[in-house]
């Protein structure tokens, strides 16, 4: 057998059918997974070809050994990517134990497969009906006796438009500013000045805020004068003409 003939070795595997060199090419191009390849079957094919010849071709054997061992390593790395580290720490004795354990596990499964084959042979004369499972009848849905009129009433209720939802509670109620404008004007018509805090005492916070706005409006219009002795001290409100007169009198004096 010539070395070139090793590459032309015809293979018939589960995952590949064709010459050995094509298999190698596909593996190198990663078109085929090494873990899919049954290495033992390749070795058997090679040995069968070797047995057909009268003499052993050492060159061919050497090339085959190199290629098949490389392939075996590729497959081993592909199959057990994480196990190299796992096995590195093992002592030779432990490694042998682990290897024996795995081999025993595989042997038992091979024996189990052989038992299944025997079983198929002994049970091969059992013939039975096979087919898709019959559809089981759906259990009937049992409803209580119904009154059509009651059903219509319920449906009528569902068909009625829902009542409008009132949003009135969400609106803020502000008293009009004009109300306080009139009120302050009336007070100043009776008195020359008044104390704002005393005037709005007893009102809500919203009403007090609106009253302050009214006060500012009057100040902007020049109808009143405002004074405060210190921050947060009572605000004193007076008619604008009274304030001017007081100021003039003070300057004259």
């Amino acid at each position, binding site marked *: 057998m010539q070395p070139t003939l090793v590459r032309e070795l015809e293979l018939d595997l589960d995952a590949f059918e064709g010459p050995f060199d094509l298999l190698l090419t596909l593996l190198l191009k990663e078109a085929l997974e090494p873990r899919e390849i049954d290495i033992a079957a390749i070795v058997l094919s090679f040995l069968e070809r070797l047995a057909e010849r009268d003499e052993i071709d050492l060159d061919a054997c050497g090339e085959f050994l190199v290629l098949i061992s490389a392939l075996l390593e590729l497959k081993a790395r592909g199959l057990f990517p994480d196990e190299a580290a796992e096995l590195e720490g093992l002592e030779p004795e432990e490694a042998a134990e682990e290897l*024996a354990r795995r081999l*025993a596990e595989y042997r038992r*499964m091979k024996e189990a497969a052989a038992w*299944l084959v025997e079983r*198929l042979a002994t049970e091969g004369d*059992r013939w039975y009906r096979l087919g898709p499972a019959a559809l089981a009848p759906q259990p009937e849905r049992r409803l209580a006796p119904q009154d059509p009129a009651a059903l219509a009433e319920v449906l009528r209720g569902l068909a009625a438009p829902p009542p409008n939802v009132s949003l009135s509670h969400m609106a803020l109620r502000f008293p009009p500013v004009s109300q306080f404008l009139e009120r302050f004007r009336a007070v100043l018509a009776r008195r020359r000045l008044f104390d704002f805090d005393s005037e709005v005492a007893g009102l809500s916070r919203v009403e007090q805020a609106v009253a302050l706005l009214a006060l500012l409006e009057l100040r902007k219009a020049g109808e009143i004068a405002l004074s405060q002795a210190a921050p947060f001290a009572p605000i004193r409100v007076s008619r604008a003409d009274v304030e001017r007169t007081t100021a003039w009198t003070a300057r004259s004096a």
Partner: protein
Amino acid sequence: MDSPLRLIAASPVDRLAHTIEALLVVASAPLSISDLADAAQDDPERVETAVGLLEERYREGRSGIVVERVAGGYAFRASRDAAEACARLFERPVERGLSQAALETLAIVAYLGPCSRPEIARIRGVAADSAVASLVERGLITEAGREDGGGAIRYRTTPLFERVFGLESLAALPRLDDLGETTEELRDRLVEVAAARAS
């Protein structure tokens, strides 16, 4: 003239046996005692008694059909005497052409299932993708969830597997300890080989 069938007698259990006989005839898969009791609306213990009557009536060699206990239930099958005639008329697509790889994979799933393809590949030393796909297609194994954390799909055998191999249940498989060499035996052999090479 032949005497009428004994089951046609009027006893209540005989009448129940008639019903169960009819259920087994129309079923395409084995029916458990519970299935039969539900369908016959009868007591499971009485159903078991009636099934016993049927097993006696349809035992091997007495009739062309046989009641067998298989895959967790009861089913009719042809008698073994009629196997050749059946083989001329019907195919057995499920078990025909099962490869060695498929049988090894099937054994692993039967004994260790539910198990995933990586677990099968780890034991066999060869990827199990095509063997698993073939067994799923034949209906001998089926998906049984995933490994923890959304990992690989796991597989288990189906009732059809038990029926094809004539097993009452998976418990009828031989014990793994009785198959193959033990770890100790293999280890001793490895040591022997290593010692021979060293010398």
